């Protein structure tokens, strides 16, 4: 249990996916200035990450290693993720049209989100157990959502500020990320 908590906190804060590992940056910079959509995006990504991590672990354990085709991991992981996203998209479309309109467009983008493939790769390298992998994905997703929420909140405020023309949009977003990164590096000594 202790170990799982350490994994969770490690993935969420100490080695935060966006601010430390540089994974999942596209939605981070593209996310709107609304806290609501940031949280939705974060939730969606977390769900996909967790299921993908589970699927990837099973594939690695029951297909790749027994059949000695470890080198196929990249192809299999990304296909699983793409399929998963398709299924989730269809599911949401059929069951909750409103939800689909809310963030349906973001869904296909999650396939190419470095964070999703990233967590499966990291789990593989770290050699986590099944529970470890799932907890790691949850932690990573939680940290991802946290940063997304913080960023959208700050950008919301920034709308009313007088930003220099050349800094508007991406440049100032990067500077905010720098400051967030500095703040988060304080978690380094936690464990």
């Amino acid at each position, binding site marked *: 249990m202790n170990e799982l908590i350490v994994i969770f906190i490690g993935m969420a804060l100490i080695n935060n996916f966006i601010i430390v590992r540089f994974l999942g940056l596209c939605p981070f910079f593209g996310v709107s200035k609304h806290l609501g959509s940031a949280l939705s995006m974060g939730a969606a990504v977390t769900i996909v990450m967790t299921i993908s991590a589970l699927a990837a672990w099973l594939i690695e354990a029951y297909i790749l290693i027994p059949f000695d*085709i470890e*080198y*196929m991991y990249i*192809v299999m992981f990304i296909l699983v993720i793409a399929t998963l996203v398709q299924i989730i998209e269809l599911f949401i479309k059929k069951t909750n049209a409103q939800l689909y309109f809310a963030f349906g467009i973001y869904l296909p983008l999650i396939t190419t989100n470095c964070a999703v493939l990233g967590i499966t790769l990291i789990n593989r*390298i*770290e050699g986590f157990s099944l529970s470890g992998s799932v907890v790691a994905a949850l932690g990573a997703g939680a940290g991802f959502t946290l940063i997304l929420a913080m960023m959208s909140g700050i950008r919301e405020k920034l709308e009313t500020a007088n930003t220099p023309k050349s800094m508007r949009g991406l440049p100032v977003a990067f500077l905010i990320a720098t400051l967030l990164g500095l703040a988060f590096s304080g978690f*380094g000594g936690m464990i």
Partner: protein
Amino acid sequence: MSAKNTLKKFYPVIVLTAVVAISVGLLSLTDNLTREKIEWQKEQKIQRLLFDLFPDMSRYDLENEIYIIYSTEDKVSYAFVAVGKGYGGEINILVGLEDENTLKGISIISQVETPGLGNRITESYFTDQFAGLSADEVARRRDGGQVDTITGATMSSSAVIKAVRAAAMEKIKLIKDREQGK
């Protein structure tokens, strides 16, 4: 014609399957071509590091995860790999023994620490500290040991110290048993 219609309907799937089949074939081929070379690379690396630690090594064996080094003067030395959890990921360290109680030195096999900071653990001013120490003395100064951590790379250097100490404690015991069993 019915056959033509069926073909049209399944065309997308046929193409996809064909692409997958060709890809898998090519990947399998690449794996075949590179697998040995990859193993060889890993061997080469270990060999080079062992040679650095034991310049008069003539050959070596691997038994139960302990390297047995035979040198020209009929002397038998031991080495083993310690694995530490660093800031960026796994740190693999080769630890060489002078005799049953003293370390000969360490070499960093692989690490993914921050360049310019954490990856200073590979520099000799850090690794040289381990030479001549007993397993017990491998600890940070503040913990009563003889090894100084690197400023700005506390996590990385602490990880190395911790890993070497743990591995040394464990392996030295195994080596002593082996020696006695002879």
